């Protein structure tokens, strides 16, 4: 299959760039964000957090805080020990994986700076915050473990002294052992004799998901069900974990994710704040709200990435790749998060990417450090893998003096080879790397820019041009439940949908997906409008409330359309089947003689027929139904995919590197993504844009930096650089369409594509500009300092300012019993009489 029309069917709605029906309320903020919720008698909660990265709590004096104005209660971990439940990791990547206990509020020790140690409940947030600063916590300090390589060395200090090790798990996939390919050591040995071996160690820095809406939770314990509103991606999973670990029956818990302002995986978590708020509300019998500040969000919510990748690639002299060995250290931070080691584990299936390796070994060690826990961040395991392999393909091209795109083409799975089973056993259903690449290269004017690049080199222009390539694939549609079962996940991967046909001809769709900015209300309405022949405006999408949407696995991993959207298709098919029986009865025809199109049942070969709305009304009235037929068209469906889907694409980035200042400017960014059929091109385009912004940010701007005490120095947006529109280029995007063969819509998923593909395109581009000066690598983010030093041939590139203080505008965010950067004496004095 080659590029075809975007529309998979003759329908009107699927394939149409509808404006998003949810946007007015989201953009104007006139909606129910969790922090907007105010309940009668509601109390407010503020956390006191540890300023130390590794310490034993020797005492907590709560008297001053308790006596402060407006304070209702103060609790420590010991007070809530029996009721607050525990935080769990749902992924056991090896049978002997170790995980320290994770109480939501620290009980006797802390293992990262920012861990909550006590909580103050007061009549206002301000009073709670003021009182939290009065808590007097004594700590006995322990050695801090921050470096992954040091953490796994013999005799290392321990993140958790009781655990006896800093290693959580050691997982190995070996294609020889699995029978999916050859022995990688043999490939490497052969290449050392008569081929080429590329060995590199690459760093994936730590990132902060930086969603727009900070996390917020409200718990109302006053009804028969305890209701929790939370800015979460996963209300269904949250209810299950709360019930499973607190002993409160699932039937007594209702979780609502109202409108949620972004997540990017950062809200794919069950959080300490949720569990503590739940426990305090139960204890006091009062509604409680806890909303974090931005700095608290950056310090204490989970982080992403953070890997050291030791990569060995074997190839023949003609450039044909043979073997790939991946040795990963992945930083889990202080505890295993909900997915935890499951994030880097996804790399198992992704490092080989689109290339036909004969042998492959993936060797993963997950490591604890005294830093914030890590978990999913847009792409979750796949950006890391894509970065590794796309960097290595460029390194191979440089080593062999080959054109990097041509070398990729030599090694990728060609279009006629699909479906293709890879060296790690994944079966890619469809793809057309040639088509996407040809389109992208034409859009970029690849040849023209290569000429300009040569000219600039020739005349030693201070501004040098680089061109970077990323030909990527990813796996979407998490996930087939049986696959999850096989790999030790404590969850399934199906999705659920219900369609309610109302008497007035309107339709309510209940989905188990939980949108937090994706546009499900619009896209799901388009699917239902098509499948049932009703008007787009007549479809209402309901989600995120476990009382309404009782079943679901929520939204992450580019799964919502590929799994949840298909559940809606299946439910709609059942509605049509039910309606057909009633319509046949009313039309006095055989059901076999009825056709359904454009929302209307017609008797073949006649002009007799009736609309879906009329059938819905007939079912509602129930006056004249066939014997034994229920008076409802409502239908449920649960869809469990048989396999993942594999979107792919070609991303090309041209950067201008100012060799005098090290500043990188993106001159042109082109991407052609193949995400299969598309329900709403506008939404898909928006997803690509956002993903590109975040992927480019990893390459050039963002990094969570800890100092040697384990304090996060990038705890405000002054120091954690999230780029804005002025910092990003125009995105020149297009698509090719190779429909997925594993689901009825032919869709593949798009939520993470831009973020997965773009980082190596940018990095390869910058390196392409400066390799002429002898530069081999520059750590991300590629700051002007690092780029300039690399060009100067400085011995140490990257890591040079790790321990340096952040910019002087904001002092180090030290938490003094509170959550915010506390006042620094020098700073306070210096700013006296400030008129700023």
């Amino acid at each position, binding site marked *: 299959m080659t590029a075809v029309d975007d529309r998979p069917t003759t329908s009107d709605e699927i394939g149409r760039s509808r404006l998003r029906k949810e946007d007015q309320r989201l953009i104007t903020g006139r909606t129910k964000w969790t922090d907007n919720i105010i309940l009668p008698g509601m109390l407010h909660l503020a956390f006191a957090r540890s300023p130390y990265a590794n310490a034993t709590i020797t005492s907590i004096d709560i008297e001053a805080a308790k006596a402060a104005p407006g304070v209702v209660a103060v609790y420590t971990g010991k007070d809530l020990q029996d009721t607050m439940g525990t935080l769990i990791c749902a992924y056991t990547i090896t049978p002997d994986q170790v995980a320290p206990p994770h109480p939501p509020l620290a009980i006797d020790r802390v293992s990262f700076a920012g861990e909550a140690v006590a909580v103050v409940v007061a009549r206002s947030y301000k009073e709670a915050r003021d009182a939290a600063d009065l808590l007097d916590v004594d700590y006995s300090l322990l050695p801090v473990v921050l470096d992954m390589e040091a953490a796994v060395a013999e005799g290392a200090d321990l993140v958790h002294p009781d655990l006896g090790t800093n290693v959580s798990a050691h997982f190995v996939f070996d294609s020889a052992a699995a029978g999916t390919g050859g022995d990688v050591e043999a490939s490497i040995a052969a290449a050392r004799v008569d081929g080429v071996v590329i060995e590199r160690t690459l760093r994936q820095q730590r990132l902060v998901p930086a969603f727009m809406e900070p996390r917020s939770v409200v718990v109302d314990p006053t009804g028969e069900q305890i209701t929790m509103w939370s800015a979460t991606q996963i209300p269904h999973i949250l209810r299950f974990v709360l019930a499973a670990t607190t002993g409160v029956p699932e039937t007594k818990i209702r979780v609502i994710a109202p409108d949620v302002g972004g997540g990017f995986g950062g809200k794919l978590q069950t959080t300490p704040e949720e569990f503590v708020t739940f426990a305090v509300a139960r204890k006091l019998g009062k509604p409680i709200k806890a909303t974090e500040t931005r700095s608290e969000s950056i310090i204490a919510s989970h982080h992403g990435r953070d890997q050291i990748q030791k990569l060995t690639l074997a190839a023949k002299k003609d450039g044909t790749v043979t073997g790939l060995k991946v040795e990963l250290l992945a930083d889990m931070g202080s505890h295993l998060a909900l997915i935890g080691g499951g994030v880097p584990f996804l790399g198992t299936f992704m490092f080989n990417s689109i290339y036909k390796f004969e042998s492959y070994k993936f060797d993963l060690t997950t490591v604890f450090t005294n830093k914030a826990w890590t978990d999913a961040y847009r792409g979750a395991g796949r950006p890391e893998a894509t970065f590794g392999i796309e960097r290595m393909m460029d390194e191979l091209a440089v080593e062999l003096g080959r054109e990097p795109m041509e070398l990729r083409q030599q090694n990728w799975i060609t279009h006629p080879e699909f479906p293709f089973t890879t060296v790690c056993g994944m079966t890619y259903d469809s793809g057309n790397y040639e088509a996407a690449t040809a389109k992208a290269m034409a859009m970029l004017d690849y040849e023209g820019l290569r000429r300009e690049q040569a000219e600039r080199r020739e005349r030693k222009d201070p501004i040098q041009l680089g061109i970077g390539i990323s030909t990527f694939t990813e796996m979407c549609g998490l996930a087939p439940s049986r696959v999850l079962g096989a790999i030790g996940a404590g969850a399934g991967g199906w999705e659920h949908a219900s369609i309610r046909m109302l008497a007035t001809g309107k339709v309510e769709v209940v989905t188990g997906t939980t949108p937090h900015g994706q546009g499900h209300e619009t896209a799901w309405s388009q699917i239902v409008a098509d499948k049932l022949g009703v008007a787009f405006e007549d479809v209402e999408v309901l989600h995120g409330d476990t009382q309404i949407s009782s079943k679901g696995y929520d939204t992450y991993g580019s799964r919502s359309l590929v799994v949840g959207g298909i559940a809606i298709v299946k439910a709609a098919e059942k509605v049509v089947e039910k309606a057909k029986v009633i319509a046949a009865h009313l039309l006095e025809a055989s059901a076999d003689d009825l056709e359904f199109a454009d929302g209307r049942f017609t008797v073949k070969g006649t002009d007799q027929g009736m609309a879906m709305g009329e059938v819905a009304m007939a079912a509602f009235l129930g006056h004249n139904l066939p014997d034994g037929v229920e008076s409802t068209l409502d239908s449920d469906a649960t869809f469990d995919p048989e396999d993942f889907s594999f979107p792919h694409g070609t991303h090309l980035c041209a950067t201008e590197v100012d060799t005098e200042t090290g500043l990188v400017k993106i001159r042109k960014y082109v991407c052609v993504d193949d995400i299969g059929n598309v329900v709403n091109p506008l939404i898909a385009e928006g997803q690509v844009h956002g993903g590109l912004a975040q992927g480019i940010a990893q390459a050039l701007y963002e990094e969570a930096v800890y100092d040697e005490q384990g304090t996060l120095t990038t705890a405000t947006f002054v120091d954690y650089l999230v*780029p804005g529109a002025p910092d990003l280029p125009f995105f020149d995007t297009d698509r090719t369409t190779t429909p997925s063969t594993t689901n009825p819509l032919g869709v593949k998923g798009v939520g993470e594509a831009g973020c997965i593909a773009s980082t190596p395109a940018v990095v390869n581009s910058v390196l392409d500009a400066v390799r002429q000066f002898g530069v081999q690598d520059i750590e991300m983010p590629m700051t002007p300092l690092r780029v300039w030093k690399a060009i100067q041939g400085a011995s140490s590139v990257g890591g040079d*300012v790790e321990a340096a203080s952040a910019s002087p505008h904001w002092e180090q965010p030290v938490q003094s019993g509170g959550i915010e*950067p506390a006042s620094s004496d020098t700073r306070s004095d210096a*700013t*006296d*009489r400030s008129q700023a």
Partner: protein
Amino acid sequence: MIPAQFDYHAPTTVDEALRLLAEVEASGRDVKVLGGGQSLLPVLRLRMAAPEVVVDLNKIPDLRGVREDGDAIVIGAMTTHDSMTREPLVRQHALLLSVASATVADPQVRHRGTFGGAIVHADPAGDIAAPVLALDCELVIQGPGGRRTVAAADFFEDLFTTAVGEGELLVEIRVPKYTGWGARYEKFTRVAQAWSVVAVAAAVKVEGGSIAQARVGLTNMGSVPIRAHAVEAALIGQPATADAIKEATRRAGEGTTPPTDANADADFRRHLAGVLTGRAVLAAAGAS
């Protein structure tokens, strides 16, 4: 995040403001003066500072606006950055102050933030101090005992510290006229809206294709703004060409002791100062 509690006063005259400051300081309470609030409010919200009293100058009309006074123009301390980018008197006689003001943060901040506030805040990475120093401005300070005038070269004492003493306010900035001078504020940041890693303020008078006079100030190359006198001297008489300017400016960072932070170390800042000074002077000379 919510600031710690404080008492708030909004006087309508300078005398009333000075009286309030005297009273509060006599009572031993910690006071901060609120100008545009674009640095103070974040500091309060992050609880890096917790003054007991805040005196807001925004209700004092006399502190706003720009007027001509003989050989100088006089800028009210509470004139906003946005006004500075547009004021015809400033653009005509002190273009450097106008173009530097235009680079401060974003439009929202420029509509609130004030010229005098930025000077008194004295953030080494702030964009106003180096141009003020380069143009030999005079800072007019008023206290209980009346007014005194301090030269820019003596005004900036240390990180966040100026010659404005307890119970005093910066009320006016007097700028000698630089009519017909070219100007450029060359600002180096990692993202569009950020403090300067390094920035260079340059004003140049070109006569007959050569540089007749030059003023150069450096931002964030030390705890206070730095005047690049040696570069200024080296530029005089040079043809306004790229090569000549580059040669005269490349040592702009020498002898400075800039900070090291996550964005740049001292070596890189010294290097940047040279590159950026060349670019700033070239642009100010209209030669680029």
